[in-house]
C-alpha cells in the first residue's frame, strides 16, 4: 500500500486531483494510516491506472466512472478489452513508425522513389523546427495545452503520428490537461508547477520519458 503522495508521483497527478477523484467516488482508498492518511491498495492503483488511460483518450470523468461502475460490469469488460486492444495497436504503430524512420535514414534519403516512404515528421524534427522558428519551451508547453483544449482527439492523433509511444503521449497529455479547468487546482499546486517548469529546461514534448521522476 502506498500513500497519496506516492500514488500522485507514480501516475503524475497532483494530490488535489487524487482527493478530487476520492470525492467523486472514482477511486476511493479504503485504508488509512494510524494518523488518518489515505493508503492506496494494489487494486485501487490499478483502477487509477485505468482512469489515467481513459483520461488520455479524452474520456470525461463521468463516463469513466460509469465504465468502472460494478453495475455496468458486463459492458465495461468488453469496453476495457477494446481499450487494451487499442492501446496495443497504438504501441505497434508507434514502433513501426520508428522502424520506418530508421530504414529511411539508413538509405540516406537516396533515390527519389524511396524518399516517398517516410514523409511523416518525427518528434525530433518538429521540435528542432519550432525551436529554430523561435518558439520557446514555455510556448511549446502552451501549444500542447491549446491543442489539448481545442481537440484532445486530434492532439492524440498528432502525437501518435510522430511515433511517440503511448506512455509518453499519456504523460504529455496529462501534463497538458492540468490547466484546462476540468481538474481541480489550488494556488499551491500552481506555484509548485511553475517551479517544476523552471527547473525543467526543456519542453514536455522533448523531455518526457516514461519512468522519469516528476517533482
Amino acid at each position, binding site marked *: 500500500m502506498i500513500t497519496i503522495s506516492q500514488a500522485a508521483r507514480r501516475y503524475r497527478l497532483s494530490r488535489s486531483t487524487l482527493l478530487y477523484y476520492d470525492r467523486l467516488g472514482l477511486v476511493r482508498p479504503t485504508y488509512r494510516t494510524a494518523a488518518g492518511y489515505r493508503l492506496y491498495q494494489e487494486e485501487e492503483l490499478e483502477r487509477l491506472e485505468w482512469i489515467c488511460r481513459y483520461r488520455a483518450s479524452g474520456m470525461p470523468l463521468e463516463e469513466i466512472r460509469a465504465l468502472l461502475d460494478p453495475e455496468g460490469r458486463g459492458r465495461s469488460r468488453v469496453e476495457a478489452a477494446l481499450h487494451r486492444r487499442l492501446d496495443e495497436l497504438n504501441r505497434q504503430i508507434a514502433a513501426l513508425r520508428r522502424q520506418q524512420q530508421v530504414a529511411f535514414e539508413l538509405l540516406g534519403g537516396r533515390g527519389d522513389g524511396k524518399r516517398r516512404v517516410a514523409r511523416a515528421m518525427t518528434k525530433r524534427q518538429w521540435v528542432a*523546427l519550432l525551436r529554430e522558428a523561435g518558439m520557446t519551451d514555455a510556448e511549446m508547453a502552451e*501549444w500542447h495545452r491549446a491543442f489539448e483544449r481545442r481537440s484532445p482527439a*486530434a492532439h492524440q492523433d498528432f502525437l501518435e503520428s510522430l511515433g511517440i509511444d503511448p506512455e509518453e503521449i499519456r504523460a504529455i497529455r496529462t501534463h497538458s490537461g492540468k490547466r484546462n479547468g476540468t481538474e481541480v487546482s489550488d494556488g499551491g499546486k500552481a506555484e509548485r508547477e511553475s517551479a517544476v517548469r523552471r527547473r525543467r529546461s526543456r519542453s514536455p514534448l522533448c523531455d518526457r520519458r516514461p519512468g522519469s521522476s516528476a517533482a
Partner: protein
Amino acid sequence: MKNVTKEQFVAILRDAGITETQMQSLHRLFETRHPDQHQAFLEHLGIAAEKIREIRARSAD
C-alpha cells in the same frame, strides 16, 4: 482518430503566442529543411493541391 484541420493548427499556434514573424520563419524552415514532409503535412491538414502549391511557393522565398 481525428485529423487536426488547418484552421485548428493555426489557431493553436496563435493560442501558444506565436508571432507573425515566427509563423513566417516556420513556413520557410519547413519548406527548406523538409520539403517532402512539408507537402505531406499540408495534405494531412486537408489543404487543396492548388493552395498547397501556393503556400510552398510563398514559403520558399
